[in-house]
């Protein structure tokens, strides 16, 4: 009994010490090529491999969000998909494209996770299982981003403008994986009123979001039945990854870019 009590007391004292050190400081801003990086470490270490480092910027220049997050079925949180090497070998998840046969933009996509990897194959493993290792990539971020229109924060790239200018053409359909759907009726953009007086209204670009994400990505998991006008999207909730924060904290343009959303000037 007294041992249990002492453990409880120690835990309480330690937790009290940990409590206050979280807010009030500026966090490290990820470098433009680090923004959108996802580290996946479900089973890698068990297989004696470094955790996987997935870079969003390469993939988002080639595919819409919907292709990966709806058609292929990736979760929206690191480790949430629970990908195994067997899944990849069977042609699911990463293996949907990373199969040594699919050709994207004229290049054959390297195969992920093959059994009985030989010495040279093992180097291929490191192309994804690269956490903490210095691995040369096929794509150099600086060369890649140089011709693209610039924006502040995040990757430092205005992905919207890049698409509108035809500099990137994200594919929205993967043969053999995506389901043939009718084109979506154009969704209307709408205004959201901010809680803080003096902040410009938010014009939510429903149209653009549905072009990239379809409906299922957001509804109902990220945006459940909240009546329009009853504002439930506080900036604090968003910064913790709820609602808009599911994307706009670590992959899409970050919350520091206030005017990207708060864009309707007050009369």
């Amino acid at each position, binding site marked *: 009994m007294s*041992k249990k009590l002492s453990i409880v007391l120690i835990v309480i004292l330690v937790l009290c010490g940990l409590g206050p050190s979280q*807010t009030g*400081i500026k966090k490290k801003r990820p470098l433009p090529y680090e923004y959108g990086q996802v580290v996946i470490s479900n089973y890698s270490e068990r297989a004696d491999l470094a955790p996987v480092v997935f870079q969003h910027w390469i993939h988002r220049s080639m595919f819409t969000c919907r292709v990966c997050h709806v058609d292929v079925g990736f979760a929206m949180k690191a480790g949430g998909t629970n990908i195994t090497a067997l899944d990849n070998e069977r042609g699911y998840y990463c293996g949907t494209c990373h199969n040594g046969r699919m050709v994207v933009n004229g290049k054959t996509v390297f195969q992920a996770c093959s059994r009985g990897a030989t010495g040279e194959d093992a180097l291929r493993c490191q192309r994804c299982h690269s956490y903490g290792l210095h691995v040369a990539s096929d794509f150099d971020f600086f060369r890649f981003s140089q011709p693209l229109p610039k924006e502040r924060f995040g990757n430092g790239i205005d992905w919207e403008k890049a698409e509108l200018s035809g500099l990137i053409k994200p594919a929205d359909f993967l043969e053999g994986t995506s389901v043939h759907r009718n084109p979506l009726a154009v969704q209307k953009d709408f205004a959201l009123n901010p809680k803080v007086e003096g902040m410009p209204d938010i014009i939510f670009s429903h149209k653009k979001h549905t072009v990239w994400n379809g409906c299922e990505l957001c509804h109902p998991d990220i945006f459940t039945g909240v009546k329009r006008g009853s504002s439930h999207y506080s900036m604090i909730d968003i910064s913790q990854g709820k609602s808009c924060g599911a994307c706009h904290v670590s992959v899409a343009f970050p919350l520091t870019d206030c005017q990207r959303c708060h864009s309707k000037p007050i009369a």
Partner: protein
Amino acid sequence: MKRRPNRNDSSILRFIVAGAIFCAGIATVAQIDLQIYLPKNPPPPAEYGRVVLDNHTPNGPGAVVFDHWLHRSKFTCRLCHVDVGFAMEANATGISDRTNHAGFHCGACHNGKTIVDGKPVFAACSDSKNANLAQDCLRCHSAGKQGVRQYEYSKFTARFPKAIYGVDWELAERNGMIKLIDFIDGVSVKKTPLRPREDFPLQTHYSWVHPITFSHEKHTIWNGCELCHPEIFPAAVKDAVHYSMFYNIEGRYCGECHGKVAFPLNNCRKCHEGAPLWAP
């Protein structure tokens, strides 16, 4: 059968309880002991705001010494910490010669092309092994080296009005002695500016603490919104968080700037109306 009380168990328990009471006692004393709420004296003004960047690269050019006073006489805080994206902590940004070459971080301006004060800014981390260019390396990689830097604090700041500690930057700007640049082509992105915010009073927790009127307007002119919100000041509701001096001295909230670069926390009267000019 009755269990014999274990002597070891009860002595551990007594130790834990005594320790908890002792810690609680310290905390109570600290509440009324002003020393916990008073900052230590800052270094001399020439060294205040100095950031030493040292990635400990073997056989590298040595640590970089970045003094804020030169850059803050020319640019707003927002330009560097929001548009360019420097972190607010030494070595936290991830600057390397590679990022500089690519036009990020120091290389955003230090590229041999961007014009400031009518002349191009020298290139940082040049590729060339030219001996003359090596001098430029030393202008930044100056830790422990004498006579390599172009500007010296007392000469550069001689003409600026002085405060109780260092330069009175606010007055210098009001008098038109410095004109802060808030936009650099190729670095900044043109945006519809957000409306500058109004000043507001901050609730103090103890009646003997002098009142504060927070200069929100000035802060938004120099920092924009993004520098402070939401990371440094997450609460959108006033008085939702107690920005105690204890946290500020730790380097959180106001202390994120006013402990290292902006006027130090020792200058009580700058925030607390009617308070002593300098902390005892």
